[in-house]
């Protein structure tokens, strides 16, 4: 997988349809309901605007954030999870004890244990597809075009042709969440 890419999620374009969840489960052949990307719905208090929705109904796709200091790797007693040279979370199935500590450790609920093997199911940004020159299954199929793989430093590629001004990004790892920052003007900090 290219070392210099970021997974970008444009909240302004996600309407929570769940296509990414199904595309992932099918691509990974891990059974119905096992998509490694999952969408959570967020409501603005009293209907106020939130990123992605002026009307206060937003959707946030959640997947492995590829943390700089991954809690799952720290928790793994067998060293099956680690950060590779390119900065992505790597997994060695041979070492995995199926203990489930990684799932408990992930602060973002982005690891699910396989029903059969008990091993972690987590997003690898479709490394095999990307090395074949393809987009991750969720990125290609997202009807709203909310998902993208972009080269770092090329933020421009993530944007959309927008008459509504620039977007900003927020990230804790190698997944960037984007939005026009709806509500910036009318929300007080804290």
């Amino acid at each position, binding site marked *: 997988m290219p070392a210099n890419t970021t997974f970008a999620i444009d909240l302004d374009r996600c*309407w*929570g349809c769940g296509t990414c969840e199904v595309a992932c489960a099918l691509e990974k052949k891990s059974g119905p309901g096992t998509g490694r990307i999952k969408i959570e719905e967020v409501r603005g208090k009293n209907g106020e605007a939130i990123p992605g929705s002026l009307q*206060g109904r937003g959707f946030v796709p959640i997947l492995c954030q590829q943390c700089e200091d991954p809690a799952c790797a720290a928790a793994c007693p067998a060293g099956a999870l680690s950060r590779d040279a390119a900065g992505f979370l790597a997994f060695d199935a041979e070492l995995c004890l199926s203990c489930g500590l990684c799932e408990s450790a992930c602060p973002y609920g982005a690891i699910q244990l396989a029903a059969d093997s008990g091993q972690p199911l987590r997003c690898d940004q479709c490394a095999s597809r990307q090395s074949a020159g393809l987009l991750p299954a969720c990125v290609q199929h997202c009807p709203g075009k909310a998902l993208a793989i972009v080269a770092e430093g090329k933020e421009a590629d993530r944007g959309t042709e927008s008459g509504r001004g620039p977007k900003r990004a927020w990230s804790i790892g190698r997944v960037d969440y984007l939005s026009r920052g709806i509500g910036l003007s009318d929300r007080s*900090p804290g």
Partner: protein
Amino acid sequence: MEQAREKRKRFAAQVCGGLAGPTMGGAEPAPRFAAVEPASRPAARETDEPSASARFLFEATRRAAEAEGLEIIPTCCFSCNTACEVLAFREKATGRIVKIEGDPSSPVTHGVACAKGLAAADLLYNPGRIKRPLKRIEPRGAKPAACPASPASPTSQDFSGEAVPPGWKEISWDEALEEITSRLLKYRETDGAKSIAFLEGTRRGWSRVYSRLANAFGAPNHGAAGWAQCLWPRLVDCKVTFGGAQYPESCDFANTNCVIVWGSNPAATWPLQGAAIMDAAERGAKLIVIDPRLSETAAKADTWLRLKPGSDTDLALGFLHVIIAENLYDRDFVENWTVGFEELRSHVAWRTPEITEKLTEVSAAAIREAAIAFAATKHACISRCVSVDQTADSVQTCRALSILIAVTGNLDVPGGNILVSGRGERSQNSHEFILADTIPLEIQRERCGYERFPLLCGELSSVPSAHMPSLWRTVLTGDPYPIKAALIFGSNAAVSYTNTNVVTQAMEKLEFLAVCDLFMTPTAQMADIVLPASSWLERDNVISSFQTSLDYSVIQRKCSEPIGESRSDVDIVCELARRMGLGDLFWKDSEALYDYLLAPTGLSLRQAIEKRRLHAPLKYGNYLKSGFKTPSGKVELFSSVLASKSCAPLPPGSPRPKEEGKPEAEGQSKEAGKLGDAEYSLDFSTGARSIFFRHTENRRNPWLISQNPHPTVYINTETAASLGIAEGDLVEVQTPAGSARLHAKLERDLALNFVEAVPGWDGEGNINRALGWERFAEGIGTVPMRGLKCRIKKVSDAS
């Protein structure tokens, strides 16, 4: 599991907080900010040829497939009418379709596909597929015992593996078709063709050849569960207002500066259109969404108008009042191209925003603002879909929107509502193709509902057809004549009709029922003969639809050998026609039909398959050349045609449930009949949809049912609280006509005292069980599914 869900919820809130303000949600790891400049993206607007990057992605896909021993079959999906171009991946060694993906080289979809299409290989390998023609060996009414239940619902019967369903035996195609033919010919001889109902369902791409069979056979009682509730009201509107040109059905989103999405939720029901709308909104176009629920589409809106369910026509007329009062109408267009403007002006004169607020529960200020935004923005469009077909005044709701489009000068201009014409191929959607005039007028007059519903049963209808509630009543009562047999292709009638209990009683009363479908649906289980149909992956097709694209027709290519002995519906219809002595009016097989349809383009089906799609550039201002094929030659704001059919020439306004007369349905129990209307005090619609299903389809698909395992009913949070209903509770929705049980989904933003159910489930979750036939829309006989009344109870309290 639950813990992971909680963590995701917390993180989602953190992401939103992080994006909303620098000091919010900052307790966790330090966020990295970057202002992202806007940049261009491939426009959603279709171009003639795939871009270089699209071709590159397609080639990469092909190479990756090759490496895995797979070959790629380009085709288009028919999991819904959008017909997105997709790639089927076929294992070379076995011929098995292992996956389906969007086609990155498609100039229409740019590679996207929704969950329904991605998971569609299950259509081939689902163990429930019917593989050979079946004949009932147990008496009708006797339910087969001991069948494993499908995950969808405990009442749904499913059959696995090669086993023949209990109570049935496999027979040859020859025997099955011979029995159907001989039975139908015998009924025609003894009781007349009117004694046989030719029924169908949602188009699987073949339906007009089925209509042709019905008409060639001479059967006036042809119809579908949808039609009067789906698309036909819009098309009747197009006919009477614009002379048949379907201007309002397509929008030029690529060039628009304002979109009103009227009652539909394309994010869930028409993702490609949803994306086009979002592209427009991202570009800066104003997005106004009208819906009683904060739908996924409404969530993206600049303005969301939460109207009272079923008050659409009132709201549209209120808009017209503002637009005329503020002189924001297009004077040139109105003067040169319309008739009836002065009648319209006086018709809406009393409908001030303040009065409209009382009728629609949308604030007067919001009405004024939205109407002005729509009329003052050049150019603007209205996106409408099935919701406007399902009001209590269906055609008139559609008319009100067409009038809005016309008087604001948004007809067939860049950014407005536009006309999509064909790509040169013959259309199946013509009275000529379906041989509508073959049936003598005196026979047509015997069609169920003919006198009362001329817009559905007569020449103004896309397919002149029976009024289905009238037909089912005739089946039950034998009045005015017996209907003894039915042939049902691709319709899960026992689930998809309103007033389910009455319809299933009627179906049980039929002497002979033959059903053609993929699965042993509740409908197929009632049949005497079941024919196995093939899915879209097993056949070719030529798909020309405004629902697919503004400027392409797409070609579907067979990807798999038929499962078992299943056959394409078109082939079955052609073979039935031959056996009925109608062979000279039909084709040898489906390929011959598509060759015929494509002939004017100079292409055979085989050539078209290689070419994959036909293109014709969009043209604006078509009416400047051709005018309007209405009696006046202009857009008829005041409809002379409707007046001639004793229908209101201007939309009178949304009918109020309480103004309706005595219920005329026989579907009510005696107990329910005693209850006063006041008890049914909640507003009720069956308008919500899930992206994972189309109508009654896909509930057997494990990849999709796992995403949405239960029937859903949306309930306003406060309303639910007052009734002790919590999220996920099983709730009984009750009306005088019946009841259904669905799982509560609480919605804070739903209109107050509003209950909205998702239809399409079988068994006790089927909301159609709660929809009666108390009233029908004027002229067309639509069974209203918006603006109804119900009451709800938590199931533990229900009985």
